[in-house]
Each structure stands twice: as structure tokens, then as C-alpha cells.
């Protein structure tokens, strides 16, 4: 992927296009899901706290921990495996079956570098998407709290600030960067090395989603064990 790099003036355009397709184009769905799942986490936590001795601020605390540690980096990455991963596999796979990759090779262009490297670079901005997911998940929780009457804004904000461990953010963003690498490479592999026709493009997209999700979930377990235990 790194050998025989594509001309920088062309690569720059490819990277910008992939940032638009993969990163900017995902913000809408990530924002929507994060806001409402954040709200659901808050509601579930509040509804399970029927002991009056437990402070209501725990709702904010539980939402923050769930969103920052797992929901935003992992759950969103699995969703992105479906959205971005399928897009990458089907777009590269279609180029394979319609001989567009052969056309690049005949011209003497390193097709792996031309197709995969810009996606790899574009997805280094993936932590930006996850930051938005974290923020909107917490805001969604706040909105659910206020409109559902589960806790006051002050209680929720107090909960958000309780026992905050900055390393949790480092852990979350380390995971995110690794997941970004998985999101760029596993779907590209399935698209680039696929064989067959249009039907196989669909199959490759499904296989790519399954494998990307499996790798993300396994990496999540290994990293959590290594960094938090």
C-alpha cells in the first residue's frame, strides 16, 4: 500500500474526497444514533434506580461512563463497519469486477496505494466523529433526563463530573484509532481481492461487515483487558 505512491496532487484530492465520503458523510447518522442512544442509556439507568438512597447524579455518571467507554468508540464503530465498511468494499469491489482496477494497473498506477491509502488517511479523522458521538450521547442523556423528569440538570451535570478519570478518554481514543485502522483495511481487503460479478460484490460487502465487526469486538476485549484491568 505504501510502495510506489500516487502523485501528491492526485492523492490530495483523493484524501479530501474520502474525508467527505467516509468522515463528513457519517456525521449525520452518528449524531442521530448517539443522541437517542445516550437518551436511552439515561432512561434505562434512571428506571433501574428505585432505591431512594442512591443519588440521582448517578444517572449522569452512568451515562458518561457508558458513552465514553463503550457506546461511542465500540458501538459506533460496529455501525460504521456497516455504513463505511460496506461502502468501501462495494466501491472497490465494483471497480474490481468492472476492470477499473485493471485499468489502473495497466497505466502503471499502484492500485492499492491509489484506492486504500487515501481511505487510511481519511479515517485518521475518525476520532473526530467519535468525539461528536460522545458529546451528543451525553447531551441526549441530558435531554432525556430533563424531558423525562428523571433527574435535574444540576444532578446530571454533577454526575458527569464525578470520579472522572482522564485516562478513560485516552483509552477510548486509543481504541478509536485502532478501530479506524480496521475500518480502512478489512473492508478494502474484501473489496480489492474479491472475485466474480455483481452478486459477489454484495456477498463481499456482507462478509466484510461481519469480519470488521468481529475484529472490532475482539480488539475491544483485548484492549480493555490490557489497558483497564
Amino acid at each position, binding site marked *: 500500500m505504501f510502495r510506489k505512491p500516487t502523485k501528491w496532487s*492526485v492523492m490530495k484530492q483523493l484524501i479530501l474526497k474520502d474525508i467527505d465520503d467516509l468522515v463528513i458523510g457519517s456525521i449525520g447518522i452518528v449524531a442521530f444514533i448517539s443522541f437517542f442512544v445516550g437518551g436511552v442509556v439515561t432512561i434505562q439507568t434512571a428506571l433501574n434506580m428505585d432505591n431512594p438512597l442512591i443519588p440521582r447524579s448517578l444517572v449522569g455518571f452512568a451515562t458518561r461512563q457508558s458513552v465514553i467507554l463503550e457506546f461511542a468508540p465500540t458501538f459506533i464503530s460496529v455501525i460504521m463497519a456497516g455504513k463505511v465498511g460496506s461502502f468501501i468494499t462495494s466501491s472497490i469491489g465494483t*471497480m474490481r469486477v*468492472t*476492470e477499473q482496477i485493471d*485499468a489502473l494497473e495497466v*497505466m502503471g498506477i499502484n492500485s492499492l496505494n491509489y484506492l486504500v491509502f487515501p481511505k487510511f488517511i481519511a479515517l485518521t479523522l475518525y476520532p473526530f466523529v467519535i468525539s461528536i458521538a460522545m458529546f451528543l450521547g451525553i447531551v441526549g442523556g441530558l435531554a432525556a433526563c430533563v424531558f423525562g423528569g428523571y433527574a435535574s440538570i444540576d444532578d446530571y451535570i454533577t454526575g458527569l463530573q464525578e470520579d472522572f478519570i482522564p485516562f478513560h478518554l485516552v483509552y477510548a481514543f486509543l481504541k478509536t484509532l485502532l478501530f479506524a485502522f480496521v475500518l480502512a483495511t478489512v473492508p478494502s481487503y474484501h473489496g480489492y481481492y474479491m472475485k466474480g460479478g455483481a452478486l459477489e460484490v454484495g456477498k463481499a460487502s456482507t462478509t466484510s461487515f461481519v469480519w470488521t465487526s468481529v475484529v472490532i469486538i475482539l480488539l475491544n476485549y483485548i484492549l480493555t483487558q490490557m489497558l483497564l484491568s
Partner: protein
Amino acid sequence: MIEVTNLEKSFGDAHILKGISTTFDKGKTNLIIGQSGSGKTVFLKCLLGLFDYEKGKIAYEGQVFAELSEAEKRNMRAKIGMVFQGSALFDSMTIEENVMFPLQMFTKQSKSEMQDRANFVLNRVKLKDANKKMPSEASGGMQKRVAIARAIVNNPKYLFCDEPNSGLDPKTAIVIDNLIKEITEEYDITTVINTHDMNSVMEIGDKIVFLKDGLKAWEGSKDNIFQTDNEVVTDFVYSSNLFKKVRRMYIEDNT
């Protein structure tokens, strides 16, 4: 000129090319014909350097492609234009961007220079006012013409075409054939066409290489093909009654 010497290629146990030797001449349209499964596409992909081969050699003007360094191969590829069976235009680019693509990759021309050159070759293939269209908005014949324009935009020395007429109506197929022939002569390039189309064989076959079961079964020109007694060739080329009649008429006219 491209010289092929004793070329052999296998996939696992399947021996696809079994020692092909031939030459493809400059300024001529060289056709590779043969039944499906005879090894035409594998032969073409070996010529293009897309497939490695086990034995033999392919030399472009005396330079053996497989022995070139990566940089030399890259330079050599810049001299090659290719028209794929399905056109292989880049879906995400407009027709103009497709044609400008090789210039963007291999030259230091300014955008306006590249646009001028793209317009020139698009006019050459008789495609005006299609610059801003996407490939999906163009007909099959238009897509083939764009593919030819993209293939010649960087002044190649070699033009390869894989089934350039497949999926086209007979009238458009003739237009594409004539276009390839004109461009070959006009730019004095070595053109190699992989085809099933017997009309192309009769019309533009300056040199015809007939493959059967991975071997060269016959070679000659479009004139020779009317006269040959080689049963393998006549069985294939004159399999339709129409071409049998054409052959009979040709022989009658020339005796």
C-alpha cells in the same frame, strides 16, 4: 513492434498458453482471435504485464518487459493505452476527467492544457459536448469511444483492445473498428485487438493470430484468411452461412 517468443502460462494444473510465438507490427491492427477458452484474454493480460508467465519472453521494441526495473516498467506502461471490454471508465469521474486521468498521473501539464488535450481527443473520437456527462449517462458506443480517447490521450506507442465491439450494434461496431484503424495508422502505433467479431477480422485485420487450445493455430492477414485451407480456422471463421457466402464470393471474384 512487440515480439512474443515461446510464451507459456499456467494456472495451477491448467496449462493455458502452450508456447506462443508471434510478432505484432507497428502501424498495423493486429487481431487475436479464437474460441472462448482458447487463451486470448490470458495472452492479452500477459502482453499487458497483468499476468506473470512461466516461460518465454515478451519484448517491446527489443526491451523484455519482465526484465525491466520497476521504474522502467512504469515508464513503459505510460506508453500503453488499453480499451477494456466493458470500457472500465471510472464511475466517479466525468467523461472529461476520465480522459484527463492519464495526463494527471503522468504529465506536469496545467489543468487548461489537460482540458485542451482532452477536448482534442474527444473531438477525434467524434464525441463533442459530452465532457461533463458521467459514464453512466453515456451509451455503450459512447463509453467505448471515451475509453479509446482515454487510451490515446497520452500519445501511446501501443494500443490494446479487449473485445472493443462486444455489446454494440453492428453499425456502432463498424464505427469503433474504423476509429481504431484510423488512429493506429494516424499515430503509427502498434495495436493489438482481442476479438470474436468476424466483421472486424474481415475489415481491419492487418495481421490475425488464431489461437486454439493455448497454441497459435494460424496467422496471416485478412486477405489470407479468405484463401486458407486450414480447417481449424475455416471451421471457426466461416461457421455462419453468411460468412461462407462471403468467402465463396471473394474466391470467385479473385479467380
